[in-house]
């Protein structure tokens, strides 16, 4: 692949100011997304998945600050873009859908009006034209009886339906990149399957790249070609999904896989991951933040900064942030 990636995040570090001192929420996070590609960012709560998405979108909490790094979208440096440039791009070039769809929608405006707002902002569509496009979008996300639903308020819709509206909003201006932050957490399995299938189908038909943020490795495996595993603000492993599952190289990925329930596994077969996330306020955080939970850790892991080991593979390169990676049989 020689074409530059659509989204390239390089050495991104984000720190949050808190009363208890600065929290190093992200440290040297790097990954890339090609045009039309679907990747997943997987990790436990507190691993920095959502902060990564917020930093890319330019919607970090005011307490958070990008200390260093680059975020290139289609060749443009998003971290240097002005607020108005970013506002022009958000929703048109890249869009995001959030967890808790009911909370993300405006409760006192009809869903039709909310979709029309996006169209008015980016495509200067008004009145009947905007309404028609809004209805098309609702039909696209398979909402039954879209004409009637245009005048519905979020509280009149079910959780799955609100998430469909969120997708319609995000896709109204045909963005090239969609970031979906836990889009199906809190939804039923049948709804989850329908929403994920819908995102996949629309992504394929529109050549849209998708970043799926999830804590569910099973869901990531099913829908994404490549998986980025995060732990305590580090990207610990980045690999094609099939290889990651067949032969994880970072001990954390291996432990995460061993803890995930899967068909054919019994409770005795599953293993818990000992310990918890390190305190990210510590000044002397070791280069490996998994150190204290790892049974392979040694002195080299304490180095102040580690560099990811990059290995080429037929389906794209693999990166692992570990000085003693597991050497399983690579597929």
């Amino acid at each position, binding site marked *: 692949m020689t074409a530059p990636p659509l989204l390239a995040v390089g050495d991104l570090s984000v720190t949050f100011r808190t009363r208890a001192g600065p929290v190093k929420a992200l440290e040297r996070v790097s990954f890339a997304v090609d045009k039309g590609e679907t990747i997943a960012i997987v990790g436990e709560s507190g691993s920095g998945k959502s902060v990564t998405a917020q930093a890319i979108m330019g919607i970090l909490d005011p307490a958070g600050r990008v200390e260093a790094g680059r975020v290139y979208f289609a060749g443009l440096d998003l971290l240097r873009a002005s607020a108005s440039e970013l506002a022009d791009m958000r929703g048109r070039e890249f869009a995001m859908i959030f967890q808790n769809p009911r909370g993300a929608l405006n409760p006192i405006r009809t869903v039709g009006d909310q979709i029309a707002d996006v169209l008015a902002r980016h495509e200067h569509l008004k009145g009947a034209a905007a309404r028609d496009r809004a209805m098309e979008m609702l039909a696209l996300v398979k909402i039954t009886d879209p004409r009637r639903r245009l005048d519905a308020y979020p509280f009149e819709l079910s959780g799955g339906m609100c998430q469909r509206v969120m997708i319609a909003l995000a896709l109204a201006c045909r963005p090239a990149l969609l970031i979906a932050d836990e889009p199906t957490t809190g939804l039923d399995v*049948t709804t989850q*399957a329908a929403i994920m299938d819908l995102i996949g189908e629309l992504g394929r038909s529109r050549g849209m790249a998708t970043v799926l943020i999830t804590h569910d490795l099973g869901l990531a495996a*099913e829908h994404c070609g490549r998986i980025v595993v995060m732990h305590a603000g580090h990207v610990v492993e980045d690999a094609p999904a099939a290889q990651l599952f067949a032969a994880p190289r970072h001990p954390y990925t291996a432990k995460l896989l061993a803890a995930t329930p899967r068909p054919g596994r019994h409770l005795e077969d599953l293993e*818990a991951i000992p310990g918890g996330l390190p305190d990210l306020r510590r000044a002397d955080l070791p280069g490996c933040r998994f150190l204290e939970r790892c049974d392979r850790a040694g002195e080299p892991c304490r180095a102040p900064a580690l560099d990811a080991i990059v290995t080429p593979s037929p389906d794209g390169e693999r990166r692992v942030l570990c000085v003693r990676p597991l050497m399983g049989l690579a597929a």
Partner: protein
Amino acid sequence: MTALLDVAGLCRRFTVGQPGPIERLRGKRPGVLHAVDAVDLRIGEGEVLGLVGESGCGKSTLARVVARLIDPSEGSIRFAGEDIGQIAARRFARHPLRRSIQMVFQDPTESLNPRWTAFDCIADPIRRMDPGAAAKVADRVHELAALVSLPETLLQRFPHQLSGGQKARVGIARAVALRPRLLVLDEPTSALDVSVQVVVLKLLDELKRRLGMSYLFVTHDLEVVRLICDRVAVMYLGRMAEVGTVGQIFERPSHPYTRALLSAVPSGVPGRTPQRIQLSGDPRSPIDPDPRICRFLGRCPNGTERCGTEMPQLRPMGEGHVAACHLADAA
């Protein structure tokens, strides 16, 4: 297996949409929401029954009626031979059998008093039901903390100073403090990360054996059901759709809703999407439902005319396996 809990013909209805004075003059009646409708349920001594279904299907209401937090509208709840359905929930709070049925709630953060230490949370049921000397209470709390592997140093902490897994342990210790015979668990692991979920599931499995408890395990996660349950009850819009052993439900599902539910579970294998059974349309309204129409009609992929004129009843599909569908064939 002798039944510890035998629920028969259980209904719980809620009145919704009280009409205003003018509407009442015009003859408008309040709607009746059938949250739980004619449910039969048996849980044997030492058995774990999984209760699954989508949000709004009445599984939490059923759990709360069984745990005697709310009253049934109709039907009987026989627990250890006594019909506890006749005892009003307010009186049951001081009934000798209260200690025998305890509950673990979904969100460990929401269900612990934020102003109480972990010690007080666990001591509360003991102080209420077994008042005694403070030293004796303290001994029991420490014993319980050891039982759920909660370090004693954490007992003086408040919920906000504990991690999700630790809070889950407090919730479980509190629930088993009075040595219940039946534990009702409402989505006990859905707020937890996979690494912590494994620990909590293993703990629950071990406690069941050590303390000889039975569980009513409410969840929407079918993988969890497979790991910990002996039998499964699938609920759809207030009614039982199918009940059977884990093997029967997962290997030979008879009800079309069960099949759709199972087909929506992610395969957990990269690149493999299971053959999905899409459910079209929205669920029927649970308010004043027509007693002659199958609740699943409209979303069912193979509904027939008979489904619109005659409510299907649970029919035997195999040894201890029942399904409520006209079209299901016995194995």
